[in-house]
């Protein structure tokens, strides 16, 4: 164990991993020009492997950072001599490890999305920027909707949705992350239902601007009734959901950005935009909101440099929509459990390096005195 640990702690691993990280940093940054920021991040930095030419797997950013983490950890556990003279190095190493841990927590546990509210509107949800979900909404209860959302592996060709909340099964026949809809000129067989009677879907390459991609799915519904069973089309930003009837209930089927419920509500009271005098350039935007928790309401102002933090969520003033009658404010909503890690690890690394330098200086002075 000790031998393996010492091998894993080899400084050569850190050296070559750091060089590889530098290479993919440059490559990923350059690739942003062609494939956009989000795709580049996903392909180079958030991936375990980068498939070159679709065949040759090379380590992705996530794997490289995991290797670096194991290397630093092994160095700390199996190869370091713990003594007062080296305490600064150990603290700096620990700070580096903490930074990587924060990176992993952010990669796995953070959520980012947006919330758009018109003045007077309330919301207790926000929509993910990129993740999608198939939402099956049971609308039969007059008081509220029962939402069942399917994410991750369900957003793919061949996925099968079968859940007690829905009396049938849904099979994803075709999934396109970016697609166009085309109106059909000819009649289609009777098994095509809803939108599929009039439109067909054709996939197209991903847009470099991630938000321009409009996902679409062709799904096959079974197990409801001969009238309802058939092939349907659902696509992102669809105005009218596909309606399915089964078991005496009505369901809405849609493909949408993953929607996350918040543990509190937000009500937009007023949005204000201040322009630079004599120009059409905005000087500042701010939103006055009520943060609602049960019956309690707390009035908060969110402005460009003053985000609001509440129960692990941070709301940034991101954008606005100027309507003829009402204005809408757009908030970027972030939940990131690893938010504090970069700050603390930087402080720890600084303290470690400071101690290391001080101890080295003392050692040199002592050496000088002895000489």
């Amino acid at each position, binding site marked *: 164990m000790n031998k393996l640990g010492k091998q894993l702690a080899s400084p050569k691993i850190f050296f070559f991993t750091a060089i590889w990280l530098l290479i993919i940093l440059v490559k990923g940054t350059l690739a942003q020009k062609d494939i956009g920021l989000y795709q580049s991040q996903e392909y180079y930095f958030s991936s375990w492997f980068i498939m070159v030419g679709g065949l040759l797997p090379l380590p992705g950013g996530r794997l490289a950072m995991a290797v670096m983490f194991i290397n630093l950890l092994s160095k700390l*556990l199996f190869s370091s001599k713990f003594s007062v003279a080296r305490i600064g190095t150990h603290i700096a190493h620990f700070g580096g490890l903490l930074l990587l*841990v924060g990176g992993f927590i952010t990669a796995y546990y953070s959520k980012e999305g947006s919330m758009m509210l018109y003045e007077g*509107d309330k919301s207790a949800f926000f*929509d993910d920027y990129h993740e999608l979900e198939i939402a099956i909404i049971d609308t039969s209860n007059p008081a*509220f*909707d029962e939402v069942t*959302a399917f994410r991750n592996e369900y957003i793919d060709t061949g996925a099968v949705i079968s859940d007690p909340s829905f009396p049938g099964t849904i099979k994803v026949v075709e999934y396109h992350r970016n697609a166009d809809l085309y109106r059909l000129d000819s009649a289609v067989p009777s098994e095509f239902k809803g939108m599929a009677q009039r439109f067909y879907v054709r996939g197209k390459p991903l847009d470099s601007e991630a*938000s321009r991609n409009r996902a679409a799915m062709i799904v096959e519904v079974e197990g409801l009734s001969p009238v309802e069973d058939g092939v349907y089309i659902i696509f992102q930003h669809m105005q009218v959901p596909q309606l399915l009837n089964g078991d005496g209930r009505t369901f809405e089927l849609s493909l949408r950005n993953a929607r996350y419920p918040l543990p509190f509500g937000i009500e937009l009271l007023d949005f204000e935009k201040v322009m630079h005098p004599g120009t*059409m350039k905005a000087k500042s935007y701010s939103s006055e909101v009520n943060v609602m928790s049960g019956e309690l309401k707390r009035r908060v102002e969110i402005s460009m440099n003053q985000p609001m933090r509440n129960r692990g969520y941070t709301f940034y003033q991101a954008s606005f929509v*100027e309507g003829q009658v009402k204005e809408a404010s757009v908030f970027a909503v972030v939940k990131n459990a690893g938010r504090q890690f970069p700050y603390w690890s930087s402080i720890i690394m600084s303290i470690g390096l400071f101690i290391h330098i001080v101890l080295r200086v003392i050692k040199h002075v002592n050496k000088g005195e002895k000489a």
Partner: protein
Amino acid sequence: MTEDFPKKTAVSLKLRKSLNLACATVGVFVFSGCPDNPSIVKYQAPKAPASISEPSMQAQAGSDLPPTITDADGVTWETPSSWTEGKASSMRMASFAIPLKDGTVGDVSLVKLAGPAGGLLANVNRWRGQVGLADLTAAGLKEELESRKTKAGVPYLAVEMINEDSGSAIAAGIYESGGATLFAKLSTNKVGLEEARGGFYEFCDSVSLGGMAPPVSSSMRADRPAMDPSLVPPAQMDSSNISWTVPSMWGEGKASSMRMASFSIPVSDGSVGDVSLVKLAGPAGGMLANVNRWRGQVGLDPLGEDALKKELESRKTLGGVSYVAVEMLNENSGAAIAGGVFEMGDSTLFIKLTTNNVGLAEGRASFLEFCDSLIFKEN
């Protein structure tokens, strides 16, 4: 045992053990912890769409939507239980979707316009154009109209049009009162009309006009502060006697020496579509040159005369003025332009929406509504 080691080594061992434990805990947490992103999520949500919502009738009327809805002028109606409330807009006082057995959705709109809104014949012929039928003459129109009365005894006109070839169908109820005209319109197909006819006329019969007044223009707003302006489209007029109705979700931009008016359309992807109104003398180079100039702007190859004809759609405004609509979309770059071209003899008016594929899909309806709303007044 540790007593046998030098003090320095004992401290080192303790430190190592503590660090071992701490790092192993962190390692286990990071590498074996399940990501906070479950594949199946279940929750209860309020009936109204919560995250991204337009100001709807429901929001304005409060969370408990009564079966009878009243607009600011006292117009009321009763919605059949199988209909679902759609989005109201600046043009539409209310919208409803009727789920139909064939999987399609019938679209019901309630639109209020000032005065006769171009006249009965022009409106009926505009709808006939939408379902692909030829225009009627004034005499032919009379045969198509049915006089009906609401529950309150107010007379209104009902009209239906069905294209037997394409299957497209429209039914409408037209109410005139208080210097304004209210249009209830069902757009569907032939089968859908048969299925939804009963509910649609129940809805039309339930309409009560109250003290219906014409839509309020911007200049009149100060005199009518009590009216909720979101329910009525503000009409705007430029110096050249052209007025238009701006959809409520559009933001007004700056006019310039070139642009008679500018508007911005928010798109769900965060981009902003740009609408411009530009009037030029004469034919301004002609339709082909202008359309090809726009095609160049979105990165498409120019068209020939024959190909151009296939791209053009002849439309009419609410007042019956003919214009040509055209769209172009570069599927590779996503760049898109929609245009409305009004040839007015001595001048040409170009209305142009510059956006992307998402913006075109989302903004198409409101752009055409805007083009349809143009009113040209004679000097």
